[in-house]
């Protein structure tokens, strides 16, 4: 039987607002332990939350970017549970009336796919618990646990997707596109390693072509893009094995262990969770003014997905993806506008980052002449393109040796000096071409035209 994966994601994004979600303490990474705190985020008696307007606006922007409907009325709820990193004994979150609902994201590519967005809501982050002693840095066996409340109350957006993803690769791509979108909106650094973007995955499998939803596993605490994909792959693998051996899949929460590429059971909570949600009486419902919602919509920049689609015709889906997700498409477009061929512009932009503020008009002249120039000339021009007074003229003189007659004797000498490599190349190790090119470049001080060197080398090695 062929199996198909059914994957949905729950993503937490820490917003990089200047202050916390419900108080005016400085938010964000850093600061000595417990210095970015106040009665509100330490949950002193009588302290009350006041919602951060910027966080609300940013969540609305994100909601627009995910194609969501922005609710006329959103309600903060209390999610009640005891834990030392949860100072109030409840987290202020959103429950049945979230700020953003019902979105859809189309992920471009050679095989584009759609991901439904169930909701995106605003909540607050917990404090950070540090376990000391006992050697492992984990709770079990630790001698004591310390709490740093600097993070407590940092705004978090939780995004929940429909179970629309069909493979680990789709999950990775969706997540990468989402990350790029968030970064470009300027609302979060969205770095998994730093925990400003966190992703839990719900994974189940089913016979391909079926539309059933089987029991799922939840993967938690996956802290890199690569591990999200590998964790999902591991879950798919293990579930398929279970079904094929006649077993069943029980609902379970797992952590992914990258060292062993396996799943381990998530520590079980000591008692069943009942969060006793109820509307937060200390806050009034959010009722964003329609004018504000509309303004935030019209102010959205062109999103990465749209730009990938736009560049796909000229570059193909994969290169368009790479261009946009590395945020190099603006300089690429500027070069194209100056008359540089698209492929050429892509190669230049992707080979070497073009510094911000570059004089693209002058740089384009160098790029257009690149075939006749030394490789170094182009590299230096790119590096200097943002310098004051940068002109193409300084680099256009740096003409490459394109005369085969001049290069042939040198090439012959190099081939003669490396009989072993020549034999290997002819035996099929064509990757060695780079080695010969490198030798020629070294001998000519980088002045040889790579194009001509390549052509001559190929011809001579074929002989």
């Amino acid at each position: 039987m062929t199996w198909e994966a059914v994957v949905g994601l729950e993503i937490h994004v820490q917003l990089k607002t200047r202050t916390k979600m419900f108080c005016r303490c400085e938010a964000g990474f850093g600061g000595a332990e417990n210095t970015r705190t106040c009665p509100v985020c330490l949950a002193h008696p009588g302290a009350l939350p006041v919602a951060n307007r910027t966080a609300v606006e940013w969540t609305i922007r994100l909601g627009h970017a995910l194609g969501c409907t922005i609710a006329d009325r959103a309600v903060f709820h209390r999610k009640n549970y005891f834990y030392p990193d949860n100072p109030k004994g409840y987290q202020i979150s959103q429950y049945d009336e979230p700020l953003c609902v019902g979105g859809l994201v189309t992920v471009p590519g050679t095989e584009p796919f759609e991901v439904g967005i169930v909701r995106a809501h605003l909540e607050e982050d917990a404090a950070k618990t540090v376990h000391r002693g006992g050697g492992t840095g984990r709770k079990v066996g630790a001698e004591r646990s310390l709490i740093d409340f600097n993070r407590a109350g940092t705004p978090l957006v939780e995004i929940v997707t429909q179970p629309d993803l069909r493979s680990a690769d789709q999950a990775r791509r969706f997540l990468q596109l989402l990350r790029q979108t968030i970064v470009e909106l300027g609302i979060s650094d969205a770095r998994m390693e730093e925990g400003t973007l966190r992703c839990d995955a719900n994974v189940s499998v089913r016979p391909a072509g079926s539309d059933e939803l089987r029991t799922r596993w939840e993967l938690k605490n996956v802290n890199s893009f690569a591990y999200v994909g590998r964790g999902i792959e591991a879950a798919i693998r293990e579930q398929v094995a279970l079904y094929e051996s006649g077993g069943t899949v029980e609902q379970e929460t797992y952590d992914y262990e990258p060292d062993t590429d396996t799943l381990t059971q998530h520590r079980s909570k000591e008692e069943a969770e009942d969060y006793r949600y109820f509307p937060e009486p200390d806050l009034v419902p959010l009722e964003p003014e329609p004018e504000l919602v509309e303004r935030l919509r019209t102010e959205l920049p062109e999103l990465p997905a749209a730009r990938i689609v736009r560049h796909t015709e000229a570059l193909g889906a994969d290169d368009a993806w790479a261009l946009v997700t590395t945020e190099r498409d603006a300089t690429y477009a500027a070069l194209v506008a100056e008359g540089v061929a698209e492929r050429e512009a892509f190669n230049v932009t992707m080979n070497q980052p073009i510094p911000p503020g570059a004089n693209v008009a002058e740089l384009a002249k160098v790029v257009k002449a690149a075939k006749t120039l030394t490789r170094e000339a182009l590299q230096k021009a790119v590096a200097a393109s943002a310098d004051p007074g940068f002109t193409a003229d300084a680099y256009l003189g740096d003409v490459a040796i394109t005369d085969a007659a001049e290069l042939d004797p040198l090439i012959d000498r190099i081939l003669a000096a490396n009989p072993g490599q020549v034999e290997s190349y002819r035996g099929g190790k064509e990757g060695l071409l780079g080695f010969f090119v490198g030798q020629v470049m070294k001998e000519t001080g980088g002045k040889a035209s790579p194009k001509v060197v390549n052509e001559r080398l190929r011809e001579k090695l074929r002989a």
Partner: protein
Amino acid sequence: MTIDTLRLTAEEADALLARKEVSGAELFAAYRDAIEARDPELHCFLRTCDDPGGDGLPIALKDVIGTKGVETTAGSKILAGYVPVYDSTVAARCKGGGLRLLGKTNTDEVAMGSSTENSAFGPSRNPWDPTRVPGGSGGGSAAAVSAGLAPWALGSDTGGSIKQPSALCGNVGLRPTYGTVSRFGIVAFASSLDQVGPVAKTVRDCARLYSVISGRDPADSTTVEVPAVEVPTAEDLKGLRIGVPVEMRDAPGIEPGVRDAVARAVDLCSELGAEVEECSLPRSVEYGLPCYYLIAPAEASSNLARYDGVRYGHRSPEGNGLIEVYERTRDEGFGDEPKRRIMLGTYALSAGYYEAFYGKAQQVRTVIIREHAAVFERFDLIVSATSPTVAFPVGERADDPLAMYASDLLTIPSCVAGLPGISIPCGLSEGLPVGLQLVGPQLAENTLFRAAHALERALGFDYVPERLR
């Protein structure tokens, strides 16, 4: 000069200060002397403060009101030793208005109770009869004002904790419209119901203190803009339409002496020129109490979760591991009443019960709000007794939570509806004060002040307890 703190109103005290007949320090000292003389018997204060200086009157604050640098326990062991690092908005506004903190007054633990017997630090006593309770939860503030231990005070009211003690102690207490006074810095009991308000000897004092503490606060999202407070002068009720909710008038459990005093006050309303008519609040009176006893404990169960021993307050020295430390801390720190309400509230919010309890109570709350709104289309205010009974003996209801809860039968409906209410003394029954409750629509404080003031003048009630005259 001798300062008769029993008799002196805040307004008169201010006049003495203005005429420099007495200094602020002398005034402060006079109240401190009165505290020293009478508080050992009455136990209104959990702690007193040294004169902080300044140019205004002294004031006493209920111990749920956070005061920077002054221990604030809310009458609970779990907060024993807790010294706030910040002032509540109302404490800051009092300071800003020059008022000088005399001390923190006793309260039922976390404001849960109707007699102050639930205070972890022992009950307060009624100045009219120390064998009786002063009401609660703000019994300390009410008794302090009546016993001349403070010219005025602040209380907090969730289901009657300002109005009921004022009724039982024979003074004036205002529970303002929800949202007019900031809750920032007030130890939370039930957030959608809690409201701070003034306790004073006269309606005019009450209005003046309300003007100090009320107004929108950026630190409390539920506060609103408040119309300018008018200190009342009119001595008639002409043009006012006053409703008498028959379900409140005829409620079971109202003592005959209370019923009679209230009936006389209602007659007086007509004599003073008001149009008085019967009206009806059937569902509010029938369902107010059960509705309140679902919503308030539910919110309390969540509000009290922060008292976990991790950051401040009591932490059990015993206990192995996280869960046990939590359990022991809260078991040792909370008394029976908070525990009872935490359990009730946790249950009411639990999966599978939410809709039947908390959800249903919220629907009933909407019904109560609408029922009141309909009445206030016809009336400017409604009147009833504040408490069904006069002050009851200490210990009488201490072991009967339901009897204690019934004490708030008449104050709770308008609290649930978020409406302002004022209690003024309207006579004596068995030698103890009877409270008259006036309730108005949202933000109708000025109307309440006006009517209460006119009635106060016409009633001529002597607010000094007979045994202290």
